[in-house]
């Protein structure tokens, strides 16, 4: 029987998922942290460590059977996968942030910077605001400081990075948590193998 391959987004999500699996009796050999593929001792599951944005791609293409990724990534990408359940880790918030003295109502034309351009676009549409969106791939907090944008839309976990750059949360858009996703065919064909893993990851 082939092992079930789980794509995990690197970092805290991968650590939390691995910890859950360890608690349920799965054992992983201690090895180099830089290794992107890890098989458990019983050879029943294989963990694949990826950049968060790539997890849905690997699952959709059937390279991985299951995946764990933040709901922010799923909102941003159109992926044809099953979103099975939310998991109890990786919680944070998607927020509109900017300098403390700014008021949203003062802007006729809003300049937003974000790693999440579709989320930013939906925000403007929902609020019926006109504006422009600048796509940035990192260090988004710098954008309002250097005049690239008026506000940013980004993930806020502790708020320390925001505070360090004299920014505050103006509005919380939605809550984010890790989501367990599955390839549509593999989930149905290998349900017997996958269902114990669902229990392991959700308890």
């Amino acid at each position, binding site marked *: 029987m082939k092992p079930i391959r789980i794509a995990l987004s690197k970092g805290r999500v991968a650590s939390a998922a691995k910890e859950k699996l360890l608690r349920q009796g799965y054992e992983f050999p201690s090895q180099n942290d830089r290794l992107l593929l890890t098989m458990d001792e019983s050879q029943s599951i294989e963990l694949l460590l990826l950049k968060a944005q790539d997890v849905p791609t690997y699952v959709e293409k059937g390279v991985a059977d299951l995946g764990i990724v933040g709901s922010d990534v799923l909102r941003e990408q159109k992926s044809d996968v099953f979103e*099975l359940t939310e998991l109890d880790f990786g919680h944070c918030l998607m927020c509109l942030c900017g300098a403390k003295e700014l008021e949203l109502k003062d802007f006729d034309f809003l300049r937003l910077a974000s790693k999440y351009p579709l989320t930013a676009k939906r925000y403007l549409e929902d609020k019926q605001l006109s504006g422009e969106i600048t796509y940035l791939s990192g260090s988004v907090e710098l954008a309002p400081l250097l005049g690239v944008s008026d506000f940013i839309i980004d993930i806020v976990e502790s708020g320390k990075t925001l505070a360090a750059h004299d920014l505050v949360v103006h509005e919380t858009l939605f809550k984010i948590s890790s989501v367990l996703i599955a390839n549509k065919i593999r989930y149905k064909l290998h349900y017997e193998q996958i269902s114990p893993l669902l229990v392991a990851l959700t308890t």
Partner: protein
Amino acid sequence: MRPRSTISQRGFFRLKLMLTKKGVVMKTALGYNHKLIYHIFKNLEFIVINKGYEPLYLPSWSSTAEEPSSQTASLLSPSGKLIHFYSDPTPLVRQIALRRKIDTPQSAQKYFYHYFFPRADNSLSEGFEQGITAGFEYFNDPSAEADAEIIKSCLELVTRLELGRVHLEIGHAGFTEGFITELRLPSEAEAKLRLLFEQKNQSAIENFAQKYELSKHQIQAIKELQNCFGPLDIVLQKTKNLSCNTAMKSALEELNDLTKHLGHVNETIHLDLGFSNSQCYYTGPVFRIYSHVNHQAIFTGGRYDSFEKDASTNLAACGANLLFPNILEVIMMNYVNSKNQNVKIGSRITLVEDAKSNAQLTRLKSDLECLGLSYTSLSASIPNSLKDIQLLLEKNPALRWLVYCEGEDTLQVIDKAYNQSYKTTAKDLVSLLMASNFESAIH
């Protein structure tokens, strides 16, 4: 105003030019390989004409289309009329069949069609994108034989196009509807629940149950239905835990009947009772055929005897739709794999994109699409070092080429087959790919 004509390829490009001048984005989806599209149409035609299907020439637009969906592309014509482009051909085919039924009430009508159409692009760029669709419909026959004929024709096309192994999945819209009726939910909740069944989303079910104050028994039943999938005998066993009403029982009988009529098909038949197809007009058996090559649905269809709006005009109808982008992808992937069967590792190309506006990668993608070469696109920062890239290639046997942006004008290319790493431009890389293993892929 009556729709006038279907949009031709030339018409499509004229429209694209007109929109470009107006500053509206029009994407030509997939860089369609027109030879390949013709190849699919000819094979479809071969199969259905032998079974008595007639070609149908569909109009692509109307200035009176009702309730445009989020997919509907709308455009103000030079004469000031608002034109809507049809994104779903099925209601249109049904309208035509209904008109013709008046003349020949008893006879079965069978049609097949294909057409290009613009649809709304809901991505960040907005504007329009090019859609392409084909399908076949069978009217005036409510029997399971008609349903089976539609599914068998799809499977025949799978064989003729050499699409490889597929996964056939059948559900029943009536079963799901029967189940939902039992819950006595408000109408807006029904559509949500239908979607949740299909998506297998367990935590969303919990939230849904909380919102609509469902009992424990109801939640349990919903969860059981979500997992009611698998081979026929297993699914029938699972349904014993559900208390079925008349509609659900009759749906199960119909499914049993359909599987008997399908008889011995090459593929194992899987049922999913939570699958009701996202289009709410389906009333009977619904199906999807997934490819094991790209893990995407390549055919979809089912029975839609009566739309809600025109329940009075009863017309038995079932049909299937070809999901073109996915079929094209399967053919391309099979082709590339077969051309490289002597090469121990695969020839798939992986692009690592670092920014949306990178001109080099955009050009490379466009060239690859035009040549019909498949690629996988990953976002940036996997390759922290050359060692990481080599590890990624080693661990993923499906990949051969890995390409990412080195600077403004250069791409960094890793060729796994020759253990080579070099810098190049998008244009030179495409020439190189064509000159090595891919020279025949464009023919």
